[in-house]
């Protein structure tokens, strides 16, 4: 009974995501592009919820939407992004389109070919909550976790160093 719900939700959010993504790459206004990205990201978060990844969905919203997009906006501001419409696509549009289309065709074909018929069962009961995720992170994947922490630290320091004004 719940299936048509989920499928319907899927289609809805999928549509939103694709539309937003398309607008990201085609709009003439950079601020709008960033905002469209927000849309895509929120759609992704919804997907995550649909796929039993609640913690991940919240993490997505917090980090991606909250931090990264804001960072982008700051970047746009600091680089004097033009307000309003402008030309933002370069000369190799058609080549890029071709490339993207090819890529899409190939990958989707492969994926469908490989995984056609597999079904996701929506009767999962474990591995959904944050508790479950935390459990696994700090037991099985603790090393990558620590490494990622170091990475973030390095990135932080690096970014500061790079963008520092030379006095």
């Amino acid at each position, binding site marked *: 009974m719940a299936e048509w719900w989920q499928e319907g939700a899927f289609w809805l959010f999928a549509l939103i995501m694709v539309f937003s993504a398309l607008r990201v790459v085609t709009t003439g206004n950079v601020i709008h592009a960033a905002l469209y990205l927000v849309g895509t990201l929120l759609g992704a978060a919804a997907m995550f919820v649909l796929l039993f990844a609640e913690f991940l969905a919240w993490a997505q919203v917090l980090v991606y939407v909250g931090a990264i997009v804001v960072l982008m906006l700051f970047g746009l501001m600091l680089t004097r992004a033009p307000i309003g419409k402008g030309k933002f696509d*370069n000369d*190799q549009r058609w*080549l*890029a389109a*071709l*490339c*993207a289309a*090819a*890529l899409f065709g*190939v*990958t989707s*074909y*492969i994926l469908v*070919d490989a995984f056609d018929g597999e079904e996701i069962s929506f009767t999962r009961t474990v591995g959904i909550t944050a508790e479950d995720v935390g459990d696994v992170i700090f037991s099985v994947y603790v090393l990558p976790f620590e490494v990622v922490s170091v990475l973030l630290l390095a990135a932080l320091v690096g970014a500061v160093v790079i963008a520092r004004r030379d006095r």
Partner: protein
Amino acid sequence: MWLVPLLPILSFFAILFFGKRLRNRGHMFGIAAIGIGFVLSLIAFIELATGRAAVEKAWTWFEFAHGESLHLEFGMHYDFLTGVMFLVVTTISLLVHIYSTGYMLDDDRYTIFFAFLSLFTGSMLLMVIANNLLMLFVGWELVGICSYFLIGHWWEEKENSSAAIKAVITNRVGDVGMLFGIFALFVATGTFNIEAINNLAHEGELGGTILTAGGLLLFAGVVSKSAQFPLYVWLPDAMAGPTPVSALIHAATMVVAGIYLVARMFLVFEAAPVVLDVVAIIASITMLLAAGLALVQDDIKRVLAYSTVSQLAYMTAALGVGAYTAGVFHLFTHAFFKALLFLGAGSVIHAAHSNNMSDMGGLKEHMPHTFRTFIIGSLGLAGIFPLAGFFSKDEIIGGALRSASELGRASSWVVLIAATVTAFLTALYMTRAVIKTFWGTYRGQGHPHESPGSMVTPLWVLAFGTITVGFLGFPVIGPFKSWINVPGEAHHDFEALYNLILPIGATVVAVLAIWIGIQFFYRERWRLDILGGPFGWIYRFVANKYYLDDFYLKGIVRPIQYPVARATYWTNQKVLDGAVNGVAIATVALSKPTYDVLDQQVIDFAVNGAAGLTGYSGGLLRYMQSGNVQRYAAVLFAAVAVFVALFALT
């Protein structure tokens, strides 16, 4: 055994390369090499004499069609004849080497002299040990060339180099004949191997004409190399070389190469009696002629040179009448006393600084050793008992007698008469020489003194040899006869002494000659006024060497030298140079259009085109390096797409 010729040849090279730097200036190599060779020869000869069989060894050098048509060998053959020759060559060469260390002491080209001495000895030995005609010819020619170098050792004097050239060219004439003789024999027998040819000739397998032709042609080589009539003219002039050279080459070794050849190929000669007759006649003519010439020379070396010619004729005549053993024995003994005489002459020349006897005289007080040994040598040459020459000469005369009387060969009578007369003359001219040199008062310049030990010692050694060697050939008792393997049935071992008249007669003749000589020259009695009067023309005729030399020079050499040479020069200038120049001009003419068309247009087009193409394609390709990161990324993603597709499909 092959070491014996090899060592001196190696020594030649060693001296050539290292000699100048050595303290003793290189003569040690030569002396060592030949000393060892001498010892080896002695050993081998003794072995041979005590019953060991002759050695023959051959290595194939060249084969055409697997020996069917041509088989060239590089081999050696050692029998008694070879053994005797080895001994002669090594002994005399060794002594000459030692002598030369004294004689050539002040010479600037001391080292090369010794080098050539070594080479010469080596080639002579090579020739003697050869088992086939080609190798023999190689040694023959090498010996001739060494003779050229050695005669012309003091080539700063024009006449020395002329003499050397004369020697070579005269030899060449004979060599051509010899080569054709070798070829004739090859055509007849199909092989160069000496033993094979001899056997075939002996068995009578070869046709008469070609055999005679081959024999005569071979003899032509003998005539030139061993200075027989009419090709003896080089030998007197060859005295221009240093005396040790004369002693070695022109007394004992090279000139006997011809005799060796006849002895070696004796069966071939025997099978063609015509050839033997020719040999005998020519030998007789030569011996008389040469003896006459020796009588009127002033230069002491020339006396000895003509004497050599005469004695060589003796040996040739011996072979010509079939007295094989006698001939070889005379070769053996003659080597000793002639070398002795030459070295003695060298000693005298060294003291008097002149070759001419008119500059000498009274040397018997000043040079006692030389004097005594020279006397011994002269007596040996004259054939006085008991010195070596007596035995060998007698055997020859006896052989001639036997051949004439018992075998009835006409040519042998000629030989007999000639040999006897020559014996007389020999004693006569030697007496003259001895008297003029050693008696009377000294007519020359400076103060003559005895020569150093290095020169006198070989003299005494040879004198000793002269005295003793004769006994080897002592009739009946002497072992020489049994050693010499007289080939085939040619056991013309003329036991010369069953006829006692002969040796006594010969001795009488010699003593008579000596007595006449003493009277004539020493006491100067009976001096016929020979320069004028009816006998004058005889004297002039003989003194001018029978005008033979003049005939050669004006009749043969000059006509060739001038007109022919000039014609050749003209041909060279006009025809040959014209052809060469013409080719050059044509090449230049051809090259211009080639340059214009071919090079400029065609080739340059290709080259420039290639360059242009490269530039053009480079111009296209440079867009790949746009520096635009997105462009790069585009390419990257496209490639990813392609790869994935490929991956999926396969």
